[in-house]
């Protein structure tokens, strides 16, 4: 209950800030631009033509759900990759601001346990990222559904995978914020985990390119611990594009992300419990 109160408070903080509302407006504008600029000609369940910003695209008459797959795939990739970086920058300040002098003393003096503060902040931010991702993906689904008559939730599922990816990255950001109390360090580690996680997804391909012996072992050891962001990104785009995805592969990846987030959060709580303010 306290965890939810802290998460809800974080949402109130977020929505009271102008720049967070700007994010909502930006996502809405993006959807509006898509809705107004994307013209599609659907004839008897087939996509006869499509114009983006007035320029016609050469598309052979295809079943509309098949023709839309690349668009859904592109949408999923946008939500998964650039949007995650945007979220890292946007949410880096939350945990350090929680630890600001004058605020943390007040919070800790209340009947709140330290782990509840860490978990509440974490869940609040991950919830916010899920909200924006679902808003963007859901809006895209509705717009394309209205224009073409094909309503699919696959981009929404891809957005949820993007949230899982961000949840793993944000756990590392929280841990750094707890130890260093710095938004810049938190964002820096978030970006580092993001790019290292992209590399980790291709670790088996990249490993042979590294000198044998210690360097390769070190690369494999480090990337073995990291969440495989590009692997999950590939699954998300495949899923949005209507391709078959192995449930076991997906479950394994998601479990890996959750294990990473859980372990790093445990370190964050451990550090927080021992810290004086």
């Amino acid at each position: 209950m306290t965890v939810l109160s802290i998460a809800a408070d974080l949402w109130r903080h977020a929505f009271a800030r102008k720049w967070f509302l700007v994010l909502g407006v930006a996502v809405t504008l993006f959807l509006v631009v898509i809705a107004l600029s994307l013209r599609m000609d659907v004839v008897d369940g087939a996509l006869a033509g499509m114009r983006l910003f007035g320029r016609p695209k050469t598309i052979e008459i295809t079943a509309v759900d098949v023709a839309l797959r690349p668009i859904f795939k592109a949408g999923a990739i946008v939500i998964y990759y650039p949007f995650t970086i945007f979220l890292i920058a946007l949410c880096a300040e939350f945990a350090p601001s929680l630890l600001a002098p004058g605020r943390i003393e007040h919070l800790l003096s209340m009947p709140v346990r330290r782990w509840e503060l860490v978990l509440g902040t974490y869940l609040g931010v991950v919830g916010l990222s899920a909200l924006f991702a679902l808003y963007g993906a859901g809006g895209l689904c509705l717009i394309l559904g209205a224009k073409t008559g094909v309503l699919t939730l696959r981009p929404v599922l891809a957005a949820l995978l993007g949230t899982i990816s961000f949840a793993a990255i944000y756990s590392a950001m929280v841990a750094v914020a707890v130890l260093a109390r710095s938004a810049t360090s938190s964002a820096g580690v978030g970006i580092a985990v993001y790019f290292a996680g992209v590399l980790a997804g291709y670790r088996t391909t990249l490993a042979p390119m590294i000198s044998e012996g210690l360097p390769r072992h070190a690369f494999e050891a480090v990337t073995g611990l990291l969440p495989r962001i590009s692997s999950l990104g590939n699954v998300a785009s495949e899923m949005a594009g209507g391709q078959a995805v192995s449930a076991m592969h997906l479950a394994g990846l998601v479990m890996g992300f959750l294990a990473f987030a859980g372990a790093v959060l445990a370190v964050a709580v451990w550090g927080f419990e021992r810290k004086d303010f």
Partner: protein
Amino acid sequence: MDLAIEVHDIEKRYRTWRNRKGFCALDGVTLEVPRGVAFGLLGPNGAGKTTFIKVLLTVVRPERGRVRVLGGDPEDPRVRARIGYLPERLDLPAYFTPMTFLSSVSRLKHLIPARDGILRLLDRVGLANDAGRKIGGFSKGMKQRLGLAAALLGKPDLLVLDEPTDGVDPMGRVEIRNLLSLELARGCTVFLNSHLLAETERVCSRVGIIASGRIARQGSLDDLCRAEGRWRVAFAPGASPDKLAAAGFQAAGKEFLFAGQDLMALNRALDAARAAGAVIAEVYPDEKDLEQVMSEVLTPAPVVVSSPVVTP
């Protein structure tokens, strides 16, 4: 004795990676505060006052010693739920209104945030007309009042206030003093940390002086301020200083001092003064103010250098 705060032999060191021995902020502090009293913790900057408060609230964990607050361990959230705390520099969310801030604090204190109750509280601290304004536009004194309102939420059994009147205008200070008096009358214990000695003197009945991480002196205000066996006597104009000196009175400005614990000795001296034609206007125990007490405690004793005795 029913104690609100019971601290025994606590030690706290702030260590860094470079300095593992660290800086000793509290060095074997032992302090007891009875329930229902106003206690003032005094001391110079860096003496350990804020660290002591943070130890009470588990914001800082001591290396050694025992801390009990309201009869329980402050690590227990149920104990902390009965404490209201105003930090020295409360960081308030600029985008919130007092209503949203106090609602948020209510939820974290496991209280149901009732609008009427919050408005009443804002009225008590003099912010009723600013309930809908953004906190970012508040003055320092207004923020301090709002922090006090947050501390008062849920009628706590113990109020821990770190510089509560900092930045508050003189009238506001009077209002806060009255508010604290009402809380004391309700049975609440007030633990006050203030640099303003006059403020502490007006609010607190018991005082502790901390210096270099140790409690240098503690007790009731009366005990601490009483000058041992000294009386201050005011005579009506016209009394002869020489005759008063002969009776045992020592001039101290417009008044006279009489040193002696024995009341009979004082009365004999007064009789002698009256016999010499002096008219007594006022007799009262010579009490020190907190500033003098602090000065006595904090000023190091002069080093006595023995010098050879010269005999004629």
